[in-house]
């Protein structure tokens, strides 16, 4: 079967067949891999690829076809889709907006708000400071833009994922 896997915004076309129970031939990037695959628990895999041994932790996220993969301390998020379904899906998908919502990464207290609505901000510019777990934490603009809506108020506690402000694409 053929799959399209997206990793770090890069798309990979991958073919896979089972040649023995537990043994798979995978075509990826013009190369052929023979993979000895073993599951001990649903998410705890052992892969032996041309003699190299890897332990892989793998979770299918609740949201759908995004896999969370951990290998020796590195984390990957991969979106997997069967080729035919992918083609169908891509026709239906809409473009993403450049609008960035800044939400509280954890509950805490807003100590300091350093911008106001309408301010032009650089990417990486500190927008506000959140005190959480006895620490001061800077929240930075992920992209350059204009502060759209500003919800956070100094001294007011916020919950995890609460909207703090919006950075709109400039111009």
């Amino acid at each position, binding site marked *: 079967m053929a799959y399209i896997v997206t990793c*770090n915004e890069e798309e990979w076309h991958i073919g896979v067949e089972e040649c023995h129970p537990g043994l798979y031939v995978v075509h990826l990037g013009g190369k052929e891999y023979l993979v000895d695959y073993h*599951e001990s628990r649903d*998410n705890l895999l052992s892969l032996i690829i*041309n003699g190299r041994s890897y332990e892989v932790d793998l979770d299918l996220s609740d949201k759908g076809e995004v896999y969370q993969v951990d*290998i020796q301390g590195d984390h*990957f998020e991969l979106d997997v889709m069967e080729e035919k379904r992918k083609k169908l899906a891509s026709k239906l998908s809409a473009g993403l907006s450049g609008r960035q919502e800044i939400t509280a*990464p*954890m509950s805490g207290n807003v100590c300091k708000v350093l911008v106001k609505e309408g301010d032009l901000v650089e990417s990486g510019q500190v927008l506000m400071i959140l005190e959480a*777990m006895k620490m001061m934490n800077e929240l930075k603009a992920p992209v350059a833009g204009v502060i759209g809506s500003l919800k956070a108020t100094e001294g007011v506690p916020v919950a995890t994922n609460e909207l703090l402000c919006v950075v709109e694409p400039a111009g």
Partner: protein
Amino acid sequence: MPADKLFQKVLIANRGEIAIRIIRACQELQIPTVAVYSEADRASLHVRVADEAYCIGPAPASRSYLRTDTIIEVAKKSGCDAIHPGYGFLSETAEFAELCAAEGITFIGPNPGAIRIMGNKIEARKVAAAQDVPLVPGMLAELRDDEDAQQAAAEIGYPIMVKAVHGFGGKGMRRVERPEDLARLVRAARSESFNCFGRKAVYLERCIERPRHIEIQIFGDGNGHVVHFMERECSIQHRHQKMIEEAPSTIVDDELRGKLGEAAVRIARAVGYDSAGTVEFLVNGTTKEFFFLEMNTRLAVEHPVTEAVTGTDLCKEMIRVAAGLPLAFLQKDIAFRGHAIECHIHAENPDHDFFPIAGRIEGLRTPGGPGVRDDSGMYEGLDVPPYYDPHLAKLVVWAGTRERCISRTRRALSEYFVKGIKTTIPFCERVMQNEHFIEGDYDTTFIDSRFDRENAAREKPHQEVALLAVVIKAFRSDKAKLGKSTPVPGGTTQADSGWKMSGRIKR
């Protein structure tokens, strides 16, 4: 098996890994334990491993772990005759120690007088000065007003530190570069100190540039016998929070060790110190000059480093001494063996400026094998609450030499698997690979000056493996759904072509 218990029952007025540490010590001494917990900590490991557990209030520490009245009440009703405060929370609150005494409960820690004197940084400096211990140059009285400040600062010399007299944990401190900033930053420090500690008093101290943070573990008993357990180096810090410690220090030789140890013991004796404590120094790595910084009147977070190299059980010894037993050590019995490194495993994202992260521990595997100690409050399924310190665990590694200890720490860190929450494990791994750290050439500015913190965009050599894993997983799942074949979950097929070597290199 002691014929008489040291205590009938001990209440642990703390949470997380240090509560577990103390419960383990009590279990080994066959003393039953009582845990207390906030509503946010119902699921915490310390609740599960204690013999008894009582809820003492809502999540904020001020309404639970800092409630002296509730804690004393639980202790009395549950039949405890001793309380161990751990570190943080009530551990350095003299009033709590006094309240325990008034209620006939043993406070497992130093006497209230010693806590009170050392909790006041001006008083602590005076004690050190009276013992002829070099101080960080600066004031021996609290700052009166702006005029006083300008005059004192001019005498001390810039850059200068403004410090809260009653502060700890890096709060109520400001670094001042120029005279024109002084008044403003003194006000800022006063205000932060008031918010954190309820007191505004500050004083000025010279700012020691690029110091090494070296501390001496001391121990006293009720009979005036005081010894030291050599030094720990704690210079790997982030925002005054220690991240990695080691013992011995790479810059402390026998001569300096002797001087630091004697100075620490003199200070401890001067206040009649009668438990475990830590005397902190700033040391100039080149000149070996040292300056008394402050004293912590509690079991140190990093006490396991000292336990590893000296072969002692400081936590258990604290309980024994609190029960009135004499200290089991003479200074001459105490010796180093090998080297130890402690890594703090915090719920923080090291790729994102150590931003603290709450969340659920979905999966957990801890390191094992020779020389590895895991002091942890984690278990699979734990929801880490967002209200407290981000400490999850401490990894303490011992080996015969520093070089071997670093190799072993690296190996142990690679065995960790913590799923569902970001931790400082990758940060610690990167420190263990850092050439400056490996050479022992570092100071308290290490993380800012010698270390590449932001490493989110680093190359991930195993992306290919991740791709292979997910397509096979997806394939098996699709096949199972289609019913075309039955995947074999525990297949034991031999890969005949396993012989072909791949050219790729595994980390």
